[in-house]
């Protein structure tokens, strides 16, 4: 006799004590996945610590450097003036054939006059020298910018070594020789021979005082002009030296998002709930323009996703589900009721809904996707092969997508979108970057940055103040 059984009961009873061991390979796979996740998690806290330490260092170093710099900067310009003297002269004779000389220092184009001028210079005091220098440089720069650049560059190096007190010929020639030895071989040849001639001229001229007087008069008139022009020349040279001003950098960054205050943009009842931030990847491209050797401005475009969770929420399905005004519900989520505490939520009256409602406990996740356009200024505090930069600026953020989901014990339910998010908002950014110059054109950057968001939400966010911490890494190509 066989007994008939409710099919449900049949299965239920048979499976009650059903247990079977999985393959050993399953645990190995689980282990492998856990290891993968562990590494990811370990990396991130290091970045945050680095970011924090870097920020503190940045402040200290900036203070130190600023003090150090202000002491040095004054000395440089005057020294440049003085030591420019001879090298220019060296170049000059070469360019004797050049007629383009806007300045009225015509005499300089003549070899004889050149010598005469030399005489003047050699016996002149420091003050007179600038005039000579300008004219020589002018000619040189028109025909041989790179040569001058070389000279200029090496001169500035010399500046810090030599002191202001270059008065006599002997010292000038010393400087000449020193500078010449620093130039590249191409320029060296050009400069050396003329200089040799010049040094002879110097020595000769030292004895000819008469000529001094006549030329001196002319010199006085155009002294002011000369100084002004010299400044101009300096600028030109700097410009030419820093020809490669643009650079482009693709960037990738892990970004951590959270709030400074408590409060919740979804509803005030969640204000006191703990919030956990998410880490997402941001990717994009930056474009830099070097305004000066130390300062550059940059912009770019990034794609970034932010997310955070509101923990310890309760949700259930209910016919009379009270909808939160800040959310645009998805069609499948119309009957979901979310609250900080369902029992006390006014909508869920015991009499209105059946008692069988399961209340799920979990977290509410809110995610936003943006396209970000930063506009930042980068100040190079340490300028060597390994550089340190201070970065600050703002970003405009354009909202592209957002969603809110509920999660409980691994089950994720879609809720909808937030309707109180501004499609356009701003963040203020600050950060400290470290970069390594790998080749002349290629540079590796690591920039931890802190970005504080403003007006993310269109209404009162109840004290929710979002920020993001990211470590922006990438390569820069200079061109």
């Amino acid at each position, binding site marked *: 006799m066989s007994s008939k059984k*409710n099919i449900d009961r049949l299965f239920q009873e048979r*499976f009650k004590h059903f247990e079977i061991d999985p393959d050993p390979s399953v645990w190995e796979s*689980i282990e492998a996945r856990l290891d993968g996740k562990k590494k990811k998690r370990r990396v991130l806290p290091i970045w945050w610590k680095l970011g924090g330490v870097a920020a503190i260092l940045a402040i200290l170093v900036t203070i130190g450097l600023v003090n150090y710099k202000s002491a040095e900067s004054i000395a440089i310009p005057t020294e440049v003036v003085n030591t420019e003297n001879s090298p220019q002269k060296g170049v000059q004779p070469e360019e004797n054939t050049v007629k383009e000389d806007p300045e009225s220092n015509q005499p300089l184009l003549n070899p004889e006059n050149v010598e005469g001028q030399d005489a003047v210079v050699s016996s002149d005091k420091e003050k007179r020298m600038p005039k000579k220098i300008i004219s020589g440089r002018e000619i040189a720069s028109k025909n041989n910018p790179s040569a001058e650049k070389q000279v200029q560059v090496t001169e500035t190096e010399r500046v810090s070594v030599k002191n202001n007190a270059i008065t006599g010929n002997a010292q000038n020639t010393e400087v000449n020789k020193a500078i010449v030895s620093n130039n590249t071989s191409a320029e060296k040849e050009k400069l050396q021979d003329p200089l040799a001639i010049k040094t002879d001229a110097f020595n000769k001229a030292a004895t000819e005082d008469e000529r001094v007087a006549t030329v001196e008069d002319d010199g006085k008139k155009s002294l002011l002009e000369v100084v002004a022009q010299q400044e101009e020349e300096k600028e030109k040279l700097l410009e030419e030296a820093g020809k490669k001003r643009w650079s482009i950098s693709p960037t990738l960054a892990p970004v951590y998002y959270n709030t400074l205050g408590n409060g919740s943009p979804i509803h005030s009842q969640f204000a006191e709930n703990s919030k956990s931030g998410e880490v997402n990847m941001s990717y994009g491209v930056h474009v830099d323009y070097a305004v000066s050797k130390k300062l550059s401005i940059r912009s770019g475009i990034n794609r970034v996703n932010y997310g955070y969770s509101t923990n310890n929420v309760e949700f259930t399905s209910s016919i009379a589900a009270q909808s939160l005004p800040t959310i645009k519900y998805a069609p499948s989520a119309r009957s979901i009721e979310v609250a900080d505490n369902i029992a006390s939520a006014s909508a869920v009256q015991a009499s209105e809904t059946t008692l069988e409602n*399961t209340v799920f406990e979990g977290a509410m996740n809110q995610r936003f996707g943006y396209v970000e356009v930063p506009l930042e200024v980068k100040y190079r505090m340490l300028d060597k092969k390994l550089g340190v930069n201070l970065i600050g600026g703002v970003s405009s953020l354009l909202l592209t997508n957002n969603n809110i989901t509920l999660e409980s014990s*691994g089950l994720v339910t879609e809720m909808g979108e937030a309707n109180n998010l501004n499609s356009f908002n701003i963040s203020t950014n600050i950060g400290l970057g470290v970069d390594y110059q790998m080749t002349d054109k290629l540079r590796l950057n690591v920039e931890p940055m802190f970005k504080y968001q403003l007006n993310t939400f269109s209404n009162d966010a109840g004290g929710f103040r979002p920020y993001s911490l990211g470590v922006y890494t990438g390569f820069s190509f200079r061109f």
Partner: protein
Amino acid sequence: MGLEQLIEQCKKNNRAGQEQLYRLFGSKLYSICLKYARSKVEAEDCLQDAFVTIFEKINQFDNKGSFEGWAKRVTINTVLQKYRKDGFFNLVVDDIEDEHEVYIEDDEIPLEYLLAIIQELPDRYRLTFNLYAIDGYSHKEIAQMLEIAEGSSKSNLARARSILKKRIEDDYLKKKVNSL
């Protein structure tokens, strides 16, 4: 060591603790996966996913209530999540059949066979049947977990029962007839 200490270890991501927990609950949870999945291979994948989730979310388990119950719940949710992505539940509701009870001859049908025919059911019937008949969830709960209407849950169940009954009767009636 006691289960509580084991859980504490897992909360700290201690590998030895995690392995021990796996040894303790692995078989039970694997059996659940086998019922809910379409095949042994898929069941293994589900088990992996379930444990990874368990270890990730173990900090949310606050030692109130049974860990086994929580772990089972996580496992079931993991499986549902996996099949939900395939969109099998968003089909139009069948006409709601009467939810009458179905009876079958209990003839010492082997467990392996029962498992096999369950796995062969279409996703939505299999999951509904498992949740209702074997794991004791209500239609309301099932509707929420599968994101379907309650009516769909009821009709899924009815369909599942009739398919299973037919399979068993066909296979075992045939046997009986042949042995005569």
